[in-house]
Structure formats: C-alpha cells, structure tokens
C-alpha cells in the first residue's frame, strides 16, 4: 500500500477505514441526518414533534422507494433516469383500471407487472443492444412522460378513492401491535447476530469483537424503539412504513446475501472479472433494471395512495426523480458502481425529506431549498470521491 510512501492526514485515513467496515457506510449519512435534526430541532421546535416526524416519514416514502430501486442499478455503475416517469405510468394505468372498475389489488398487480416490463425492456436495450444506460433511460424519461399523459387523458389527473389503494397510506397499526412488532424484530435481529457469532466461534473463524456485536444489537434496538415510540405517540405505525421497511429488508438481503446480489456487486466493481468467472453480466443487468421497474411501480402506487390522486405533475417534470437519485447518492451509494446499500437509500431519502421539511417550517423560499439540496448532494458525492481515491491510489 502507498500509506508509507505518501503520508496523509490521519483523520482522512481513519475515515476511509471506517467507510470500509460493514456498518461504516451508514455513519456519514446517519451523522448528516442527526445534524439536520438537531439543527432544525433547535431553530424550529415544531420540527421535533411526533406529528412532524410522521409527516416526514410519509413525505419521504415515495422518494425512498424510488431511491431503493435506483440504488440497485447504481451498484452496477449504471443509472436510471426514467424511474419517476415509470412510476407515473404505472400509477396512471392503475388509476385508469380502477376507474374502469377493476378491483384495487388486481389493478396494483397489473401496474407492478407493467413497471417490471418497462424496466426489463430498458435493461435489454442497455445489456444486449449496448446503448449507455444514461441514454436509454433519458429516452425512457421522455417517452414514459408522454405515455403517462396519454393514459391520463385530457384532464391530466385522476382522483383515487379506491379503499385498497388509499389504505396503504391511511391504515395504522394499533400501538400495542407496533410494540409487539418492534420486540419481534429486535429479537430476530439479536438472535441472528448472536447465532452467527456462536457459529463462527464453533468453526474457529475470525470473530468480531464482542463490543461490536453487542453494540450492533443495542444500536438496532435503540433505533427501532425510538422510531416506534415516536410514531405511536402520534397515530401508530403507518402500514406504509411497515411495508417499505419489509421490502427494503428483502432487497437488502437479496443484494448482500445471495449469489445474485454478489454478482451485482461483482459486475459493478469489475465487469470483466465477473464475466470471466462465468457470471452472465447481461442477465444481471436486465434483472437490475427489472427491479428498478418493480420499485418504480410500487412508488407509483404509494404516490397515488398518498396524494389521493394521480396527476402528471406529481410524478413527471417535478423534482421527484432528482430527489430519488440524490437520496441514493447521499446514502453513500457510489455512482461508479460496486458500493452502496439499499438501506442507505432510505436514510438518504430521510435526509432530503428532513431538509425540505425543516426549510418549509422555517419559511425558507423555494430558491433556498433548491440551493440547500444542491449543496447537500455535492457534499455527499465529495465524500464518495474522497473515500474512493484510496482504492485508486493503491492500484
């Protein structure tokens, strides 16, 4: 390594080492989130109320869902500019179907299938035809916006009264159920971590320090308890939060703990290496775009439910796409591929949501909000670039 050859500020080295650890990638975005909360908590006392946190979670849901999807193509080193428009198309189709008296659940399912097909189609163009993802999805962005207008018809908006779709964002778990859920999740997490440690000891493998093991469990428990307590003191845990955390957990597991997820990271880190060990990088790419399409469709449904309508402006042309990409990047997912996590996308969405929410409360103008968001995004990408340069130097 070039550490001896080129003495660098120790702080920077420590920071890079931290980023390389398993949970280290969470730290910068978590610190950013806490800093933002403390700042607005002091300047705008209303920010810290449980009611505001509830709105914050709900506002961030659509951005977070999209960001989780976009993270998956970012891991490959690609980008998807079309996912917000894709979400709009899926939401519009669902709305039209519901207006035509198709039952809500079936309309949602059809919308999800459409989202996956649109995603996969773009993936095929990227992987097999060889068009850069930026161009394919830029064309998708424009085309899907047009498609959405076509589906919505002249009025440009359809109201959403279907109880199933509305229920996604209006149903809450009773506080008791919330606590039971929290206890179950913490118990499962602790069990998994401790069993892993015990098995490692039995097999004579290198062990994590027990401080780290118990620290993980304690940290996880504190976060879960704090979140549940906050949400319970307003109305209870929204079903939406449970759904999104569940989906993110599933995708997080798929991306980190299955051969498919490993191929995703491998193809993003070194596509040639992945190809040589027999990974079909094209299939992986199509599947990744399909997953983005899936998440886009879910985001479309969530958006329709939350706004109680499907309108062109809510999905297309607006800042939704840029906020979602920003959330993924702020979460620490590298635009260069091969590094990131879907969980960080959720944290990134909360950072963007908190910033918008806090600035709204403090009566900032739209101009201020835009400039603040830009600055935060820039800082996030700078962190990525700085922590990446260590790998580039030692090559």
């Amino acid at each position, binding site marked *: 390594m070039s550490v001896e050859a080129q003495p660098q500020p120790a702080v920077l080295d420590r920071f890079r080492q931290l980023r390389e650890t398993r949970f280290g990638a969470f730290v910068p975005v978590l610190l950013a989130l806490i800093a933002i909360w403390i700042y607005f908590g002091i300047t705008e006392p209303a920010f810290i109320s449980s009611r505001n946190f509830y709105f914050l979670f709900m506002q961030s849901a659509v951005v977070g869902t999209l960001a989780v999807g976009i993270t998956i193509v970012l891991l490959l080193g690609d980008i998807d500019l079309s996912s917000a428009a894709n979400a709009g198309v899926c939401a519009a189709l669902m709305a039209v179907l519901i207006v035509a008296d198709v039952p809500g659940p079936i309309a949602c399912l059809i919308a999800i299938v459409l989202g996956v097909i649109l995603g996969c189609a773009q993936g095929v163009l990227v992987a097999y035809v060889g068009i850069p993802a930026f161009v394919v999805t830029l064309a998708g962005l424009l085309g899907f916006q047009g498609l959405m207008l076509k589906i919505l018809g002249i009025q440009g908006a359809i109201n959403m009264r279907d109880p199933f779709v509305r229920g996604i964002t209006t149903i809450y778990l009773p506080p008791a159920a919330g606590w039971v859920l929290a206890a179950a999740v913490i118990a499962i997490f602790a069990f998994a971590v401790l069993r892993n440690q015990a098995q490692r000891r039995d*097999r004579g493998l290198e062990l994590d320090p027990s401080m780290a093991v118990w620290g993980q469990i304690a940290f996880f428990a504190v976060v879960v308890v704090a979140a549940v307590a906050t949400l319970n003191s307003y109305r209870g845990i929204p079903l939406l939060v449970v759904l999104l955390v569940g989906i993110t957990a599933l995708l997080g597991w798929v991306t980190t703990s*299955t*051969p498919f997820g490993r191929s995703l*990271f491998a193809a993003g880190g070194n596509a040639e*290496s*992945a190809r040589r060990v027999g990974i079909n990088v094209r299939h992986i790419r199509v599947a990744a775009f399909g997953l983005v399409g899936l998440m886009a469709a879910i985001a479309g449904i969530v958006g329709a439910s939350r706004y109680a309508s499907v309108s062109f402006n809510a999905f297309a042309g607006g800042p939704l796409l840029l906020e979602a990409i920003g959330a993924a990047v702020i979460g620490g997912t590298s635009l260069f591929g091969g590094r990131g996590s879907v969980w960080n996308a959720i944290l990134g969405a909360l950072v963007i949501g908190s910033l918008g929410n806090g600035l709204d409360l403090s009566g900032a103008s739209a101009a201020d909000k835009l400039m603040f968001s830009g600055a935060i995004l820039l800082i996030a990408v700078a962190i990525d670039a700085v922590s990446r340069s260590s*790998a580039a130097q030692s090559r």
Partner: protein
Amino acid sequence: MLGTIENKVGQSAPPAHLAVSGIRKSFGGVHALRGVDFEVARGEVMALVGDNGAGKSTLMKVLAGAHLADEGTFFLDGKEVSISSPHDAFDHGIQIVYQDLALCENLDVAANLSLGAEPVKSGWGFLPRFLRPIDGMAMEERALAAIDRLQVRTLKSVRAKVGGLSGGQRQAIAIARAVGADSSVVLLDEPTAALGVAQTRQVLDVVKRLRETNHAVVYISHNLKDIFEVADRITVLRHGANVATWHTTETTPDEIVVAMTTGLDDGGNNVR
C-alpha cells in the same frame, strides 16, 4: 510430432499432463502461431518465453480456450480433448490468471475466491440457486483453506477488501482463485511484471507451492532471473513457432536470450 521437444528433452521429460501439437492461429493475415507444440507435466513449472510478438500470450489464450485454434490437437493425460471455449478449459481443470488479475476490489478476499460459485445454505431448495442465501462461513473456510495451501502468510484476514491489498497479495489471491477451482493446470501470464522485490518473492513462493501441490504450471515471464529460479523447463517461441525446450538445469540465461532473439540453426545450436 514433438520433434524439437524430444530433441532437447528426450526421455528425461516427465509424462505430459497437458500437451498440444500443431497449433495454428491467424488473426486476419497475421500468423500468430504457426504449428506450435507445447507440453507441461504435473508437478512441473514450464516457462514460456519469447520476444514480444513471439506468440506466448496467444498460445496461453488458446490453452485457456479464450482463443479458438485454427488447427491443432489437445491431449490431456494422453487422451485427445477439445478445448474451444473458456468453459471447456475450465471443465478440463485448466485455469488462467491474466495479467490484469480481474479481481473485484470492492469485494473481500473470501468473496473474490468464491465468485461465481458461492456455496449456498441447504434447506432453501424452493428458491432458484441464485436467490438462495450464501453460506458466508463455508465461503470463509474455503478461502482460508486456499490461502493456507499456498501459504500466503502476509494476508491478515480473508474478510479484507481486495482494494486494500498489495500487488503481491492480489497476485496470490488471483492464483488461489485459479487453484481453488479444482484445477490441474494453472496458466500464469506475467505474474511478477508490476511487482517490487519482496512482492515478487511472495509470488515466486506461491508458484513453487503450486508445483509441490502437483499442479502443472505454465509461467510466462520476461524476467529470466525469475524463470531460472522457479521453472523446471523452458519453452522458447520465436515468430509464432517453437525454437526448443530446455531443462533449466542444462541451459543458461545467455543461451535462452540468444534463442529468443535469433533462434537456432538446423543442428540445434544457437545461431551466433
């Protein structure tokens, strides 16, 4: 058939594990290989040397199935086999370590060593294989075993990201990956080209370990000092054809250099 090889090595050569004969390969009008014979035995390090453009890398890629030979036959333990794709080569236990290593720097050592063939936990048969949970501990054990076999002592943890390793460690990991996959033939393309003295030493030790573990090792290098240290035999190519094969103990670096640059006369003597 193996005229030049018999000529120089004769009965003392060990029985070949992998042997090819009459390999021809053209790229458009360029004849990269003009009927090359080559062989390597188990427990032997065969060096492949030649000036730039002599056809070393082309021959290596033909052996690894990355290039399809226009003509020529492949024998594995005396039996004729066909190698027309990297997959064929893999199935026959032939593994190549390219100069650029092709490791994923964003993954840890264990993940790199199992890449593309991750062990999965049992009991998840209802899922397609690519969605079953990876058995991370079995993967680490596999990595530790591979590292142990090659006696890579400087590596602290198989959970370290490859991006943070030294050049020699990476080379060792790349070799371990090739060996881990149940291989009998390991092709190494310039493994020490970009390395310093200590790192080179580490890699040469790994190559020697490969010989001790009864692998057939093909070693391409420009560095004659390294070659005379690790190789048992040396095959010299020139202009896409065999010059000759020598036992390392029966030749000198000077003789090899002359063979590389000017070839031999008809009597098998160096052309001066």
